[in-house]
């Protein structure tokens, strides 16, 4: 029921009556905008953020190169969007749940997911927590409170509402942050999630990375509105739009959003305006649908450089440190990649575990039949045949699965 004023002439509104400004703190020079104040952020934390952004960038560049060399089947970069994801993650409690779409590796890096852990997933080897079942980039970590990625778009959004509702009942003062693209926000699940969060007063932060594209589809073909932010009004939800390439602004906005969520059970929508600088994925070539010029313009808004300049101006970072960091990261990527590539695939039994909590008799029969088949044709199934060999020491499935 509504309690609004009356009018006696028909008057249509279309939302042009108001507009949602963009919150920015840092200029591309690394200086603060006039009138802007930096958020409270100590040297260590600022360097942690910077380190995570750079490590993410290096990982992305190297792994895309590895994919081009045929070492990896598939990869997705988040180049250009590091500030949005890392900045948001830095503003959260480390025990807050994160539900990501697939372009949020920066959050994992920030929380301490090791390159080894990344690599094991990317190569789907026996140490992959996901047991080699999902495509590369479908990371997950229980100990880092990072929900395993699932490819269907939008599904994680109402799940985040539910997860956060559980957190609220548990009363542990934690919240959930869910990341999604401006494309995924068109799914029906988005509507369900935001409406339910507002009705049930759920401590959840909906973080939309508006990076301008959903594969080849530009955002003007995704929605007619001024971005995703105005949708919050339809749910009476708090909303803020932020410069997604400005890590300080993202950090501060998310910090305050978290306060609204955890202290007042107010869900919040954050729209981070940014740009997907790389291709959608290793299977994509953006030259078919956008101009180099457009890309160049955004390359000049590089979020990492922006933060670096700010740090250097404060003497919190130096060129030497930069060089050393870049080198060590590159070395680490190569070493961990080599290790992961060499690791054996998950054992045959992993084909039928985790479908249910306990293996069903029917599945056991199917596995047994498969095993005798593979025994007959071991060369045809080199990965499977490995685990038939009684000499292969199988890892304890339950050890160190990112549990704690």
């Amino acid at each position, binding site marked *: 029921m509504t309690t609004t004023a009356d009018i006696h002439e028909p008057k249509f509104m279309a939302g042009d009556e108001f507009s949602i400004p963009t919150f920015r703190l840092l200029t591309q020079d690394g200086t603060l905008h006039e009138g802007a104040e930096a958020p409270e952020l100590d040297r260590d934390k600022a360097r942690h953020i910077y380190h995570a952004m750079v490590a993410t960038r290096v990982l992305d560049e190297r792994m895309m190169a590895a994919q081009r060399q045929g070492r990896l089947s598939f990869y997705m970069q988040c180049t250009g969007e590091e500030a949005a994801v890392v900045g948001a993650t830095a503003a959260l409690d480390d025990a807050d749940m994160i539900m990501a779409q697939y372009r949020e590796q920066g959050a994992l890096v920030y929380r301490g997911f090791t390159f080894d852990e990344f690599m094991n997933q990317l190569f789907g080897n026996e140490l992959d927590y996901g047991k080699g079942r999902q495509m590369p980039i*479908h990371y997950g970590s*229980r100990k880092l409170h990072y929900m395993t990625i699932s490819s269907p778009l939008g599904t994680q959004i109402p799940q985040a509402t*539910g*997860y956060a509702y559980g957190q609220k009942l548990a009363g542990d003062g934690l919240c959930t942050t869910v990341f999604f693209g401006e494309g995924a926000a068109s799914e029906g699940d988005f509507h369900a999630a935001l409406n339910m969060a507002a009705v049930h007063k759920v401590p959840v932060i909906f973080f939309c990375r508006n990076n301008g594209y959903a594969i080849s589809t530009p955002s003007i073909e995704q929605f007619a509105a001024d971005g995703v932010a105005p949708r919050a009004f339809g749910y009476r939800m708090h909303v803020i739009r932020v410069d997604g390439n400005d890590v300080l602004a993202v950090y501060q906005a998310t910090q305050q959003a978290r306060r609204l969520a955890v202290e007042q059970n107010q869900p919040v929508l954050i729209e981070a305006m940014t740009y997907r600088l790389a291709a959608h994925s290793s299977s994509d070539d953006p030259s078919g649908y956008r101009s180099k010029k457009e890309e160049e313009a955004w390359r000049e808004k590089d979020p990492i450089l922006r933060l670096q300049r700010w740090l250097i101006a404060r003497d919190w970072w130096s060129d030497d440190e930069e060089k050393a960091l870049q080198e060590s990261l590159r070395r680490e990527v190569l070493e961990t990649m080599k290790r992961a590539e060499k690791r054996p695939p998950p054992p045959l039994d992993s084909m039928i575990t985790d479908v249910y909590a306990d293996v069903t008799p029917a599945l056991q029969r199917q596995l047994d039949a498969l095993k005798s088949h593979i025994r007959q044709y071991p060369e045809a199934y080199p990965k499977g045949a490995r685990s038939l060999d009684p000499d292969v020491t199988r890892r304890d499935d339950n050890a160190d*699965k990112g549990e704690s």
Partner: protein
Amino acid sequence: MPTLNMLQAINQALDIAMAEDEKVLCFGEDVGGFGGVFRATSHLQERYGKARCFNTPLVEQGIIGFANGLAAQGSVPVAEIQFADYIFPAFDQIVNETAKFRYRSGDLFNVGGLTIRAPYGGGISGGLYHSQSPEAYFAHTPGLKVVIPRNPYEAKGLLLASIRDPDPVIFFEPKRLYRASTGEVPEEDYQLPIGEAEITREGTDVTLLGWGAQMEVIDKAVELAEKDGISCEVIDLRTLLPWDEDTVAESVLKTGRLVVTHEAPQTGGFAGEVAAAIQERCFLYLESPIMRVTGLDTPFPLTLEKEYMPDHLKIHEAIRASVNY
């Protein structure tokens, strides 16, 4: 023992589960103060508060998405879909998410706490959209469990087991029996096994297999058949996924004949799975083809519902055909 109808038995199961474990939550459209359009959740909001039993907005994909998240967090959601006909907007959340949550994460995360309740089936003049039996869609989805009770006693015991099962369960309630089926139901907490069929009547000439409201129909058909001198063994499958092949196969090895019945359309229905699996396992023992008595391959009708339904007369004819093959 008190006599309850199926709704009362279900309500009691929910009450017991919520009393025992504060992580159990019940929600869905009209589930809160009103207690659900069939009143299966009556009084639960009164007893356990609005935070644990509540109305949701009208959005099935949201209800199950929300429930998936809750379950992943460690809560034990019992989500109601008002009619099984309206479960389809949540199909993606169920088939792509619920079913694959544990597997895809290598068991880092799971939604095993989730139970989805939905009234299903025909015989209530519901036409296309208040009569469907969508169990076969879910029974083709590894990672789900699909459970269907045939009477109040089974409903209570199977629902309690479903809520506590470590895997997500879709619990289809034969709504035609909600008030029509009554029986003795112990007041205390008890569970019936998931994944196990039950032989409800022993016999030697032919095996009859069904689930849910069809069990009553089978019983009527069997009465007719026994008058013809045919000895029938009757099995309630109870869990469709993972289903109890062994019990069915053993029975068919004995009787040599099988009739399977469900209300859903025949093509692609779950009777097909049963027939395929059993002909493979019992090939040399089969004395006649496995027969299916099902709904027609059409949407569910209204005025001619009686004609559409796999009723006791049709089953009786199938029994005869099977025995006289």
